[in-house]
């Protein structure tokens, strides 16, 4: 295991891989710092640039974006009080007060070094657990896979805060998208209404790009005022004693480890994402603290917990995608698409059949952290100025890159039409309060759910096998449990949500 890892570290240090990794990390830092541009959006923008690259170089760029994005959000969160990404929300609570108190360098670097350490601790988990989990998943038959995917979908749909019904309906609609076109067993066209456009079905990447990009851009446009952005960037010095900052973090080992574990756990669970990890770790740090009343006034514990957890979350998400082929969140959903484009089928066979690529991803993840530190040190002030670029310039550029991303998949306009169609659908989802995550997971897992269901029935028509086979039964039991838990939790939160009637966007 470690021999493969060291070999891959040597590979990724070659310029062929190091340059995409560095550019990806920089793009992630900038995208993460830009309020309104999420990491998912940054990955979507970077994706078409990886099409012509070697698979490992392309995936290294993606990993760089992911790691950089989680750290970039903290800069704007700390210096201007606006989280660059949802996964830096809790960083704002203490980062901004600390910066306003006259310690902007300490706020930014506490977050950056906590991200670095949390990320590296997460890397150990990623490297040590992915292969054993993948080997365990190799025992799965179609019954187990079907049940695992149902469990993932049930969990994600159940996590929808505003309406449980809409969460499940959203997931079901995502599954329907995969039914349109040729069936996977006999290639009979289904639900195409005689249309040539629908006959080939929808590739999931244009669907995903359309749904996420338009949902976000159009929601931003609804509230966009004409004229220059109002963001004022403080350009005071970020100089700080790095040893003192690192010691400040390492002198709180319990906080660091606990926040990292929370980040990892949230990352492993399908489609919850870094924002939940960030807020949950902050909340836990406050609960365990001897002085909880000081949280929110600019104390280091708040920044450390929030930032260590969201970078560890990346490692957790990578475990799920690499061991089971299930995206841990929206970002890994796009990464899964990128892997498929590069001819890789994520899942338990991936690490066994493609060890060079799998360990290359681990190596890229490890190396992205020191690269992130160096870029943060060199360029924090430079890319912070990009925050001031008008959205009138950014939005057309993003949309053009979305079109290229969709078109370049197989050089056909059909994918661009699909992008537009699902852009409209994505916006309607937001307007009607439907969560996007279950829909996307439905689109990603739909084919696999159908194939494994049909395969299981063709192997043995006894439907009880889904329950009587131990792993499958446990997965289905957990699915029922997660729905029941979600129902119980939903009843508790319904009263609270009724008070805030303002529509909310649930990405």
């Amino acid at each position, binding site marked *: 295991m470690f021999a493969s890892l060291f070999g891959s570290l040597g590979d990724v240090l070659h310029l062929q891989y190091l340059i995409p990794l560095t550019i990806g990390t920089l793009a992630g830092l900038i995208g993460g710092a830009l309020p309104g541009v999420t990491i998912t959006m940054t990955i979507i923008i970077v994706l*078409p*640039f990886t*099409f*012509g*690259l070697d698979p490992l170089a392309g995936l290294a760029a993606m990993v760089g974006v992911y790691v950089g994005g989680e750290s970039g959000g903290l800069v704007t969160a700390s210096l201007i009080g606006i989280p660059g990404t949802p996964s830096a929300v809790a960083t704002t609570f203490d980062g901004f007060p600390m910066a306003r108190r006259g310690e902007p360098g300490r706020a930014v670097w506490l977050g950056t070094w906590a991200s670095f350490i949390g990320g590296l601790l997460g890397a150990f988990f990623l490297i040590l657990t992915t292969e054993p989990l993948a080997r365990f998943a190799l025992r799965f038959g179609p019954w187990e896979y079907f049940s695992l995917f149902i469990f993932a979908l049930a969990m994600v749909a159940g996590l929808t805060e505003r*309406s449980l*019904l*809409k969460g*499940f*309906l959203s997931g*079901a609609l995502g*599954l*329907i998208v995969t*039914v349109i076109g040729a*069936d996977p*067993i*006999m290639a*009979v066209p*289904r*639900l195409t*209404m005689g249309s040539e456009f629908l006959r080939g079905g929808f590739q999931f990447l244009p669907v995903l790009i359309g749904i996420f990009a338009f949902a976000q*851009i*159009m929601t931003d*446009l*609804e*509230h*966009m005022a*004409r*004229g220059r952005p109002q963001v004022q960037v403080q350009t005071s010095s970020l100089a700080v004693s790095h040893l003192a900052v690192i010691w400040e973090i390492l002198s709180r080992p319990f906080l660091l480890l606990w926040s990292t574990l929370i980040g990892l756990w949230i990352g492993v669970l399908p489609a919850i994402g870094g924002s939940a990890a960030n807020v949950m770790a902050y909340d836990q740090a406050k609960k365990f603290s001897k002085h909880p009343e000081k949280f929110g006034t600019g104390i280091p514990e708040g920044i450390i917990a929030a930032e260590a957890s969201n970078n560890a979350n990346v490692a957790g998400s990578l475990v799920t995608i690499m061991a089971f082929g299930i995206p841990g969140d929206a970002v890994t959903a796009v990464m899964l698409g990128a892997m498929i484009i590069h001819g890789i089928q994520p899942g338990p066979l991936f690490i066994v059949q493609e060890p060079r690529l799998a360990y290359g991803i681990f190596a890229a993840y490890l190396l992205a952290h020191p690269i992130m530190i160096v870029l943060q040190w060199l360029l924090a002030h430079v890319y912070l100025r990009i925050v001031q670029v008008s*959205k*009138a*310039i950014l*939005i*057309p*550029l993003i*949309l*053009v890159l979305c*079109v*290229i991303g969709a078109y*370049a998949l197989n*050089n056909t*306009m059909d994918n*661009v*039409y699909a*992008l*537009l169609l699902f*852009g409209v659908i994505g*916006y309607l989802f937001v*307007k*009607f*309060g*439907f969560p996007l995550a279950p829909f996307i997971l439905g689109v990603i897992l739909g084919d696999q759910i*159908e194939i494994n269901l*049909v395969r299981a*029935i*063709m192997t043995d028509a006894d439907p009880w096998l889904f329950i009587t086979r131990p792993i499958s039964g446990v997965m289905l039991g957990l699915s029922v449990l997660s729905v029941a838990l979600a129902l119980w939790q939903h009843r508790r939160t319904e009263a609270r949500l*009724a008070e805030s*009637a*303002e*529509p909310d966007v649930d990405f």
Partner: protein
Amino acid sequence: MLSRDGIAGLACLGGSLWFLALTRGLPHPALVPVGPAFYPRILLTITALLSAALVVSDLVRRRGAARPAPVRYGFVLLTFAIFGVYVALLPSLGYRVATFLFVGGLQATLERPRGRRWGLVLAVALVTTLATYYVFEGYLSVLLPRGRLSGF
């Protein structure tokens, strides 16, 4: 009176029932236990039930008098329209011409330029078009659409 949830539920119910009706025309093979209609029927039945439940829950739910925040739907519709025209023109005008027009047009729509700012709008449109074209075609070997009418 139905709210957003009820309307969405009705639309999903109608769509899933329509698709369910379409599955009746699918063949049933004699040699395998399940045909191409097997999985869609299960899925569409579940979707129809969930949609109906959403409509019913909307009808029985008490509603507050909350008023949504004012939003600029005109802006959104205009952006969708401009993007739609861009997508429609891509095969005819080709990537370079259509993208230049799109980036310039959308910028001018989102932030109305006056005087010298027109220069910036045109410069951004030109740089975006040329930079993306040369990076993708030249460096990344991604072929971008050629125009049927423009010839490039």
